[in-house]
């Protein structure tokens, strides 16, 4: 499996070999694959999405049964012992967490961190005002707010996440730029549109139809766009 260059770049200066690692928010397991490729002793791949959990098991878990544990669990309440993890990664996680969830996840990640634990947080800077993809994400968030009362995506500035984790006892180590610009490909945008479409199903017709019409126009008009920045922050835990 090909590990994205964003993941390899974020991990290349971290001591992964021999470490017990936690991929917080495993998605399809890109970072789990990167951690295994970098010789992690053990990787806990945690996601609250059953489909993601089975995808990670299929893609990476199967070949690496001994070193991988895919856990379907909530990051706000991890089934892991305190002070037990050497490396924690949150690659593309924070943007799918609301501020309330983020605060609770930070508390829980700090609980499981062993003394000297390394934390890698990779995410997106807020998009510039003139980015076309902003409109698509705004629509996705509007649907999520209407349906569930909270946004689907929040882009946190790197400085803010640094301060958040500093407040939990983490010391800043380094920051680097992973992508500049960020390539929002047709595949990415189509996946975001699919989230909005699925959400819109739960809305009354008079709200759903104009939103969906806007959505399809937007997706067609944007096509793809390279804009914004993806960053990587590394921090260290010391009690």
């Amino acid at each position: 499996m090909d590990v994205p260059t964003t993941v390899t770049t974020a991990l290349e200066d971290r001591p992964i070999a021999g470490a017990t690692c936690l991929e917080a928010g495993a998605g399809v397991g890109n970072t789990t694959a990167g951690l295994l490729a970098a010789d992690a002793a053990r990787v806990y791949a945690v996601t609250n999405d059953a489909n993601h959990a089975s995808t990670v098991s299929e893609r990476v878990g199967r070949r690496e049964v001994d070193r991988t544990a895919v856990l379907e669990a909530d990051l706000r309440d991890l089934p892991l012992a305190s002070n037990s993890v050497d490396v924690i990664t949150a690659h593309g996680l924070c943007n799918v967490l609301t501020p309330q969830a983020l605060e609770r996840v930070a508390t829980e990640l700090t609980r499981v961190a062993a003394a000297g634990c390394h934390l890698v947080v990779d995410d997106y800077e807020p998009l510039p005002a003139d980015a076309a993809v902003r409109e698509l994400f705004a629509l996705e968030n509007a649907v999520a707010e209407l349906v569930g009362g909270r946004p689907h995506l929040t882009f946190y500035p790197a400085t803010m996440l640094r301060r958040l984790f500093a407040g939990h006892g983490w010391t800043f180590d380094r920051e680097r730029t992973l992508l500049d610009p960020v390539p929002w490909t047709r595949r990415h945008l189509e996946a975001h549109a699919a989230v909005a479409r699925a959400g819109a199903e739960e809305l009354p017709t008079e709200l759903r139809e104009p939103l969906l019409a806007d959505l399809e126009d937007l997706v067609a008009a944007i096509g793809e766009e390279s804009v914004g920045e993806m960053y990587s922050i590394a921090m260290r835990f010391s009690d």
Partner: protein
Amino acid sequence: MQTRPLGETGHDSTVMTFGAIALNWLEQEGADQMVELVLDRGINHFDVAPTYGDAEVKLAPKLNQHREEIFLGCKTQERDYEGAKAKLEASLERLETDHIELYQVHGLEYEHELETITGEDGALEAFREAKEDGVVDHIGLTSHGNPQLILEAIDRIDDLETLMFPMNPVVAGKDDDDHDYEAVLERADEEGIGTLGIKAFAKGPWPSTDELPEADRPYANWYEPVDTPAEIEERFDFAASSGLTSVINAGDPKLVAMILDAASRYDGMDEAARRSLIERLRHEESPVPEQLHH
């Protein structure tokens, strides 16, 4: 145009090398103009081969008019002594010149070829003889084959001075050893071997011949090339910022002026932008579900 040392050959090659295969699809007058254009933009390294139709013959008039300005690379697909010696003589004749700066083993693909080339009565004996006679200055090798085989060639050919291999962002996104040309680049650097990049402008394979008959392809390239100024520029920048000495243009003459322009304006590409391009081009027919992230 920027120049860089071509390994330890003592020659500083321009960051773009003119792939003279482009001349094959032009009449003589057009070929002459193409060479003048390329020289006018400052290119000092040319590359040709006897397998490129009649490119050698069409290059000859302007090559000889400007012989001192051109560092010429040529190559042979012959693997044994007699074949290589004969092909070199034939190339010299068609090019109407008495020497070639860089003579390269062309298109190494199989282990057994490497055996033949490096063995007794192998092509390299003819190369070395030509070098002793002052007909050839430097020895190189080209391959778009397995990177592991190229690494082996570096080990086995002590007097290898240049390598030509693919440098393409789609390929760079693949992790397996079969696509690891970065490892070749790294080793070449350690060994002081000059590096020339091909396939920088390849977008992907052509559609099947059922969908698009060969005769209906709009470009003469083996792969479908990128063909807008913005794409050409980012592909050039990607290849030139990889650590290669020089990047070879796509073969089709219609693309050469655009590539020359990108080469003239080249001023680096940082790592975050290089990764951005790799991730944008990461293979579409990937077996994993749709992804929301990078």
